[in-house]
């Protein structure tokens, strides 16, 4: 008791110091003199604790731990206060953010260690890789990068429009977080397993009652836990900085509104329904009739019973003939000839009214044919038959008029009040090309992919950010298992290379497939596996026969590339960064899909294969 009393006293003094320092910081804006008094008193108390804590009770584990936290707290608030005192609030924010994130990390680590304290082999291994990550510096380096870079970003971003500042901060900070944690996960997992096998440290572990799969699972659990803490820290940091950037002055009223409506929100987008199913059908039939006359061999067939040529119905047309016609019909449907109008129906908008006051129509008009000299198009919108005072924003420009003239080939946004939506949740949008007294202009078309979409908010930014971080966490789960699996049979550098290759291929899967398509063209779409293989072989032989050796070589390269993308999961689908930066919702279905495909199926398959192979492997080497 005689020993414990001063410790308790010390804790009290230390806590008092922390509270005083924080109180001083909060008071700072209103009562500078009182604030400085409290800050100085707090620092004296904190320093007193540190001297006692560090020098007298350094052998008591938790005293040393609290001392470390306090040192960090002390340094952070001293530097922050100094920055504010010197009139550098930006720098103060950076220091405060970095210190806060570091403190949050240390606390999270303690929590995680507590979670791993149970007497089970998996937790034993998990706890050890956690210690390895911190003490062997490999994890720590990435933590430092994260804790330093995220707070620095707001200083670097220099967009004049607040909307873009917030959006870009989200984009870069999420990108850095995902990249840094991915690299850390791969390096940490590959290094831990490969080094332990190489240095024979694993021998001591594997001669204990722990199954090989438990050893691998323990590593995975440890790294996944560490990632959870780091994502939480990054999340808190990103949220705090986003909010603080959002407080900075906006360019104008609409800019301020746009931050809330287009960035700090969770919107879903919906494309126009192919309203007139019958209309599209009719267009398709008309086009087919024309084609049957032009190319009877392709679009008609000889009836075996009567021996007459009969038109092939649209449903029975081969896919490679039907798709282009359909695409063309849809593209025509999204085109509005001069001085006429088209109506597009958006449905399922009942939820929109629950979260916001506006729907956002995002569109990019493309001019076909004659364009007015200022490259602006006169368009006129009507929602559910009501002509509304639309407010249109385009590239920072605000146009308020029922008939705005919209710059072509640029995204524009129109706010539509939610009360325009029908009780059934539908909205018929009628767009007139041209208008009363407008200069002559050609056909206006919208790209079927992203030329016209209706956005509406379905949730808040906070939940969306959390879901985005969860999606990154699922991806990291896969990468952790990848690193572990690779290191069970490869050395550290080779395992890292393999993981890096898979990571790049998985993250850029969408882009990679496109590139491969363009790199060496051969018909692969809409064919089954066997036909594809045959197609590749025939193309290759054909190229060789015609002396196009380079093209033949490219066919081989593409085949290898396609085989590789086949065994690599498509992580690009589950990338929350662009969604968060554009204020789009990370939907529950995307989250569930990410969990199912990335965290459960791909990680599971990889883990099972690794456990199976590692379980059969001879861990020791020849030493005769």
């Amino acid at each position, binding site marked *: 008791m005689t020993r414990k009393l001063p410790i308790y006293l010390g804790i009290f003094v230390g806590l008092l110091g922390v509270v005083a320092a924080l109180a001083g910081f909060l008071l700072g804006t209103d009562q500078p003199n009182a604030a400085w008094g409290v800050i100085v008193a707090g620092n004296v108390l904190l320093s007193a604790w540190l001297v006692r804590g560090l020098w007298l009770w350094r052998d008591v584990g938790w005293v040393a731990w609290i001392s470390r936290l306090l040192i960090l707290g002390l340094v952070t608030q001293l530097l922050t206060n100094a920055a504010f005192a010197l009139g550098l609030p930006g720098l103060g924010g950076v220091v405060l953010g970095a210190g806060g994130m570091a403190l949050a990390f240390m606390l999270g680590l303690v929590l995680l260690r507590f979670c791993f304290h149970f*007497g089970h082999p998996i937790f034993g291994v998990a706890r*050890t890789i956690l210690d390895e990550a911190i003490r062997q510096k490999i994890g720590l380096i990435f933590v430092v990068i994260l804790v330093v870079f995220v707070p620095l970003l707001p200083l670097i971003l220099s967009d004049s429009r607040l909307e873009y500042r917030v959006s870009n901060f989200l984009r870069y900070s999420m990108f850095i977080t995902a990249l840094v944690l991915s690299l850390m996960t791969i390096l940490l997992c590959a290094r831990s397993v490969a080094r332990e096998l190489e240095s024979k440290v694993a021998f001591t572990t594997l*001669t204990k009652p722990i199954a090989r799969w438990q050893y691998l699972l323990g590593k995975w659990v440890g790294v996944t836990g560490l990632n959870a803490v780091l994502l939480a820290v990054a999340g808190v940091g990103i949220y705090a900085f986003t909010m603080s950037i959002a407080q900075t002055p906006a360019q104008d009223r609409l800019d301020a509104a746009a931050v809330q409506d287009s960035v700090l929100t969770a919107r879903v987008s919906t494309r126009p329904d192919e309203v007139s199913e019958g209309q599209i059908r009719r267009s398709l039939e008309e086009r087919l009739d024309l084609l049957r006359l032009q190319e009877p061999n392709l679009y008609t067939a000889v009836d075996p019973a009567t021996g007459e040529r009969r038109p092939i119905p649209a449903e029975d047309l081969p896919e490679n003939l039907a798709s282009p016609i359909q695409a063309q019909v849809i593209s025509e449907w999204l085109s509005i000839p001069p001085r006429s109008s088209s109506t597009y129906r958006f449905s399922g908008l009942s939820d929109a009214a629950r979260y916001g006051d506006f729907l956002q129509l995002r569109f990019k008009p493309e001019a076909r044919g004659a364009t007015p000299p200022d490259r602006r198009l006169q368009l006129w919108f009507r929602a559910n038959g009501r002509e509304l005072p639309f407010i249109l924003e385009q590239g920072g420009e605000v146009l308020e008029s029922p008939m705005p003239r919209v710059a072509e080939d640029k995204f524009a946004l129109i706010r539509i009040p939610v009360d325009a939506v029908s009780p059934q949740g539908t909205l018929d949008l009628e767009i007139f090309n041209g208008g009363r007294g407008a200069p002559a202009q050609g056909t206006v078309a919208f790209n079927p992919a992203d030329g016209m979409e209706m956005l509406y908010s379905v949730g808040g930014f906070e939940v969306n950010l959390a879901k985005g971080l969860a999606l990154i966490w699922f991806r990291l789960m896969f990468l952790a298992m990848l690193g572990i699996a690779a290191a069970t049979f490869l050395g550290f550098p080779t395992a890292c290379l393999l993981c890096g290759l898979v990571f790049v291929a998985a993250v850029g899967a969408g882009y990679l497939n496109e590139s491969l398509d363009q790199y060496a063209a051969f018909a692969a779409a809409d064919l089954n596996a066997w036909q594809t293989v045959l197609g590749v072989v025939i193309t290759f032989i054909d190229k060789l026969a015609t002396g196009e050796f380079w093209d033949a070589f490219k066919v081989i390269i593409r085949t290898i590339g396609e085989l590789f993308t086949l065994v690599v999961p498509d992580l690009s689908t589950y990338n929350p960064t662009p969604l968060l930066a554009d204020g789009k919702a990370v939907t529950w279905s995307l989250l569930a899909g990410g969990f199912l495909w990335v965290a459960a199926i791909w990680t599971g398959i990889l883990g099972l294969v690794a456990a199976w192979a590692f379980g059969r492997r001879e861990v020791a080497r020849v030493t005769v």
Partner: protein
Amino acid sequence: MPDELYIQCLKLSKVFKDFWMRDRVRAVDEIDLDVRRGEVFGLLGPNGSGKSTTIKMILGLLHPSSGRIVVLGKLPRDVSIKEHIGYLPEESYLYKFLNARETLEYYGKLFHQDRRKRQRRIDMLLEMVGLDKVQRRPIGEYSKGMQRRIGLAQALINDPKLLILDEPTTGMDPIGTKQIKDLIVRLKDAGKTVLLCSHLLADVEDVTDRCAIMFGGKVRRAGTIDELLTRHDETTITTPALDEQHEQRLVAAMEAAGVADIAVHRGRQRLEALFLDIVEEAQRTGLATAGAGNAGQVAAFLTEANTLEGMDAQDADGNGGNGSAVIDSLVVETPELVSASPAVSNPPPTDQPELVAESETNDVLSELTGDKPPMEPASPSSPAKPIKPDTADSPAPDTDTDRSVIDDLLK
């Protein structure tokens, strides 16, 4: 079941193949090996003789090319048997970034031990291996000997039935070596089975019951230490220090009895015993050291259960500390040694009562000095048993009594 086999290897072979599946090295070649419950078994051999490969197969780290291993009644790759095995690898394969306590925490968790049990055992083990004062330093900062100690502690955290020690004394100073040998004997007394793999022959000789000598992947000789080491062509007689006159009379008497080629040597202390005496002396005078502290008592949990019958309770409690009676008995200090050739001094078989030895001494001497024909040195019933009346376990013999016996005999 004293003959219960804890490890059984039948025609065990390990062939390492190259890329083309051609035999490259035949590391272990059809060996048969049995380790019985409760014994200390020594696996000896020069470097590269296949000892470590055999141990790694027993532990499931390597798979046999042919033959069969049964460990504690199951195949080596069965995870459940590992619950009862303690393994000290030939080098300290431990996490350098953990401290001693965390290391033991980690290995305790691998045995599903809850926190309370872990803490209790860790405290005892750290004290036992003398690292309790430096338990918060990372293992990477430890000397090699200290790393061996923590390695030993991790091997014992589960109170193993079967302890496999691969070169346990490499890198250890003589005190550490003595403590390990002491520990092995104590563990054997507590009913543990120990497989000891070493090329430090003196260590093995001191503690093992049976051993096998490997070379080129084969077991060349196997048997009990007595069977392997007894020289059948000479006899050693040990007496208290004799003056020159008595010595000459004894030699003359023996020559009269027809014994030729008699050599008389002054008794010599072993260097190990001398070293330990010096260190103990220094420790008594309180000199400080930066390294591992004094090893404490054997952790109680290792001996508290399944203690073998006949274990000397006083031995377990009274003589803990720095040098227990057991180790003293191993480090034989023979005050005087008379031998016919370089001395072979083995510890007496533990089941041999001291009185018998003494009476045999009388018999032999009377045979030598009397009219009886000299005893056949290679008598199968008692093969040239070395005579050592004073071990630490027995009360010190009365020198006067001994002298009078000899005087009587030499009259």
